[in-house]
Structure formats: structure tokens, C-alpha cells
């Protein structure tokens, strides 16, 4: 593995929806193992489409996608099912099955490895159960194993979402707006947790995210998507007003964070803004 042999490789990926909307326009992208990449861009730029094309929840119209040596875009249904086990996905609204317990939600990450009747009677192999307990401990939910998912707070639910993805023993995490439904403090904790885990396990990750400042704190690489094209690919430090304008369009990028003096206060102002936005969604 490493940069010479990327975990994920997209070649000239195009997605045109049946409505005629061009969501992805010849995207080339490589993500090496252990790298956490933030994918930013305005709503409708194709971020969600891009990560869903990787595990083919959305079928790409053309182009090729590789995970390691496997060409995902060429797999049959059965092969795809096997390949999906290697790709963990984390969602904005957590996408937990609310009436199932935390443990059932986590073990659902193992469904690709067991037959129907075993999963129906919840008789998972001991190794899988042991792993689930270990993962729940890692994300800090050991106390809540038998609680129903709808009894948890937002941050706790997202931790279950993370544990479910990890239960797959994935090579890559596909993360869709993990913090959009969370308050600013929980957002930071969740994003930090995802990045730590990727480092621990040498996992590649693509994180779709709207909050640019938050992404800058944690990720090693940022890719900007606009109207289905990659318009920026670089380190978080390179994100300046000119780059943001290229990705999102014209806006007074220097104004918001520097309204008042010190650095600490800046962050508070940001948090307030974010909370207001979170309330609206």
C-alpha cells in the first residue's frame, strides 16, 4: 500500500442522472491508505453522488473505480455484495435502524459475512461479537449495548454509526456529512474520532463535509468539487479566499471569522452560526 498503490482510484467517473443532471463530470481521484480526505463543495456539487458511486448505491454512468486491485465498477451483483463489505459508510442522519438495539445495529455491519438464518436469529460468530464489544468500547458506548438506538443522543448515535462501519473491517470509510446533524462540540469529537480511527487502522477515508473550518482542523487533504468537477486538490492550509471562491463562488470569505479581535472569540462566533444552521436542518 501507500501512495504508489492507492486504496481507492477513480478514473474518468461520470454520473448523469435519469433527469439529465450531470452530477459527476470525468472525476479522477486517488486516495492512499491511511489518508483522510475531506470532500467539500456547494450543495448539489456531487459530493454525495461521488461516495455513493464508490459502493454503487448509485451506479456510475461511465468511468472506472478501483478498490485496491478490484474494479468495483465492473462487478456483478454478487461480487459487489462481497466488495461492499470492504467499504464502511457513515451517514449524516446516522441511518441507524432505530427500533433495533445498539448491538444489533453494530452487528448489521457484519451481515455481508453471515448467512440469512444466522443473522435472522442474531446468532453471530463469537469473534464478530467480541469485535463488536471491542469497537463499542473504543467509541465509548460500552454502557449502551442493549439500548435501542432511538434512546441515544445524536452524538451517541453517530458513534454507533461509526462502530457499524468498523464492524465491516473496511479498507475505506465513506463518510457523508457526519456532523451536519450535530452540535459544534459533538461535531468536533466525532470528526476527531473518525480521524483517529483511520490513523490507528491505516484506513483511507472520504469525508463529505460542509463545514470547511472544521475539516481544516482534522484532515490531511481537501478536495473541492464544483458542478461535478474537481476544482481543488491540496492541503487544508492552501484553502484561502481565492480557492473558496473557486469552489463555492463569490462571497466575502475574509469577513466572517475576523469580525472581532482575538482568535478564541472567532471560534465562538463560528460555533453560534453553526448552531443556528443545525437548528434549521
Amino acid at each position, binding site marked *: 500500500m501507500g501512495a504508489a498503490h492507492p486504496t481507492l482510484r477513480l478514473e474518468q467517473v461520470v454520473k448523469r442522472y435519469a433527469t439529465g443532471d450531470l452530477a459527476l463530470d470525468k472525476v479522477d481521484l486517488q486516495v492512499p491508505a491511511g489518508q483522510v480526505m475531506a470532500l467539500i463543495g456547494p450543495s448539489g456539487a456531487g459530493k454525495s453522488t461521488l461516495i455513493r458511486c464508490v*459502493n454503487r*448505491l448509485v451506479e456510475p454512468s461511465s468511468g472506472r473505480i478501483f478498490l485496491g486491485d478490484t474494479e468495483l465498477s465492473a462487478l456483478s451483483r454478487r461480487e459487489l*455484495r*462481497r*466488495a*461492499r*463489505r470492504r*467499504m*464502511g*459508510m457513515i*451517514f449524516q*442522519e446516522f*441511518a*441507524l*435502524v*432505530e*427500533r*433495533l438495539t445498539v448491538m*444489533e445495529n453494530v452487528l*448489521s*455491519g*457484519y*451481515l*455481508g*459475512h453471515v448467512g*440469512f438464518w444466522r*443473522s*435472522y436469529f442474531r446468532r453471530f460468530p463469537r469473534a464478530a461479537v467480541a469485535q463488536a464489544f471491542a469497537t463499542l468500547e473504543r467509541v465509548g458506548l460500552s454502557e449502551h449495548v442493549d439500548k435501542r438506538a432511538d434512546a441515544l443522543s445524536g452524538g451517541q448515535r453517530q458513534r454507533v*454509526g461509526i462502530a*457499524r462501519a468498523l464492524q*465491516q473491517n473496511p479498507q475505506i470509510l*465513506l463518510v457523508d456529512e457526519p456532523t451536519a446533524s450535530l452540535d459544534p462540540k459533538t461535531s468536533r469529537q466525532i470528526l476527531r474520532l473518525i480521524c483517529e480511527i483511520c490513523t490507528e487502522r491505516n484506513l483511507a477515508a472520504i469525508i463529505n463535509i460542509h463545514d470547511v473550518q472544521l475539516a481544516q482542523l482534522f484532515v490531511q487533504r481537501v478536495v473541492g468539487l464544483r458542478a461535478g468537477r474537481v476544482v481543488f486538490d491540496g492541503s487544508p492550509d492552501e484553502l484561502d479566499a481565492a480557492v473558496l471562491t473557486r469552489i463555492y463562488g463569490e462571497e466575502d470569505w475574509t469577513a466572517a471569522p475576523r469580525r472581532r479581535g482575538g482568535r478564541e472569540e472567532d471560534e465562538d462566533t463560528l460555533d453560534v452560526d453553526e448552531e443556528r444552521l443545525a437548528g434549521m436542518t
Partner: protein
Amino acid sequence: MSTTPLPLYWRPPPLIANARLRWCLIGGAGVYLVLAFASLEVNWQRVLEGLPRAVRLVAAFFPPDFTSRQADIIEGMIESLTMTVTSTVAGVLISVPIGIGAARNVAPLPVYLACRGIIAVSRSFQEIIIAIVLVALVGFGPLAGFLTLSFATIGFLSKLLAEDIEDIDPSPAEAVRATGASWLQWLNYGIQPQVMPRLIGLGLYRLDINFRESAVIGIVGAGGIGATLNTAIDRYEFDSAAAILVLIIVIVMAAEYISSWIRGRVQ
């Protein structure tokens, strides 16, 4: 500040924008209703003559007589309850796969059309019509009733289950699919937990309906308490008929109470 004063009054826009069309529709509906009621030809003479007869009929129901036909009533009740429970269980078992097949977000188009077809056929006939046909096919008695109620349950339950499946939150189902789950596992983990409380509620509600229907279809020969009730009325034994009606009311109310308690527990 703007130069023109801001409006002080606001009304919501009317449902039908065209004023002439709107008033034509309202006026037309009014004229139709007046003419329709006028065409009913209520014969007040006959209504007046009927009133004392109605009083006498109602009086004949009292006091309800539970004893003189006790054996018949007990037999009819047991038959009805058996019919109700067996037909509900059979109906639910058949409805679940048909309901899954009739949900557009789960089933492929040919399966969807076939299952929707079955539901349409089952729903287009009222229970009494089905019962008349089935009594002709399999003869008088509770077997006809069982078949009728099972058939009617399929139309009711499959349709409502299919609609509930179509209304699920798609994101947990998508998440389960993304883990590499098979189609059956996806149903079991992504869909079933979302629709289970409603399925239980609908099943209990149908049990309730099937009991009431079992009393009705008995009148056309499909066995059960309806047959007993019909016999009592044919013999002018209105006090025994009243006893049967009281028992039906009590059982329906008990079923209602128990099912709402259970539904409250399974959310």
C-alpha cells in the same frame, strides 16, 4: 423606508383561482343538493305508521334472553371465534409476502404488478359477496366463513403493509444495503423493524374486523354466530337475538380495549 404604504390586510389565496369557476362550482353543488333531497320522496304517512311498529320491535328485544337458546348461542360464538382467529392467522401469513411484493421500493416491477393485482381483486368484493360465492362452492358452514375472511384479510392487510413499507425511512435501509447484506438480510434488518409495530397493530385491528364480519356473513350461510342470530330473528325470538347482539358488542369492545393496549406496548 419604502414610499408606498405596506398593505394592512392579507387573506390566503383561494383554492380555485378563477373566481367565476369557483362560484359556478359552489352554486352548482348547492342546486344539486337541493334537487337531490327533494327527489327522496319521503312518505310521512308511512313513517308515522311505522313508528309504533318500531317501538314494539325494540320492546320485543327486552329483556334479552340468554338462557332459552344458550346451547345454540355458545356453539355459534365458539364457531365465530374459531373462524376469526384461524382466518386472521392464515390471512396475515399470506398477506406478508404479498404486501412485501406490492411495495414498489422493495419489489421489481413484474412482482409489484402481480401483487397489486391480487390486492385489487381481494378488495373489489365486499365480504358478503365473497361469502355467497364460497357458500355455493364449499357448502354451508364455518369453512366458507374461514375462506371468506382469509381472502378479505389479504386485501386489507397486504395493501396497508405495502403502503407502510413504501413510507419507511430509506436511509437505514440504504445503510444496511451498504454493508453488503443480502436481500433477505436487508428486509430483516432494514425494513422489518420499521414496519413491525404497524403490522402488529393492523393484525389486531383485522382480528377485530373479522369477528364483526363473521357475524354478518353467518347470515348468508357461512356459519358462526351470524347463523344463530339469523335463526333467532327468523323465529321471531327477538329476546334471544338481543342476547346475541349484547354478546357481540361486549366481545368487540373487549377486543378493542385489548388491541389498543397491545398496540401501545409495541411502539
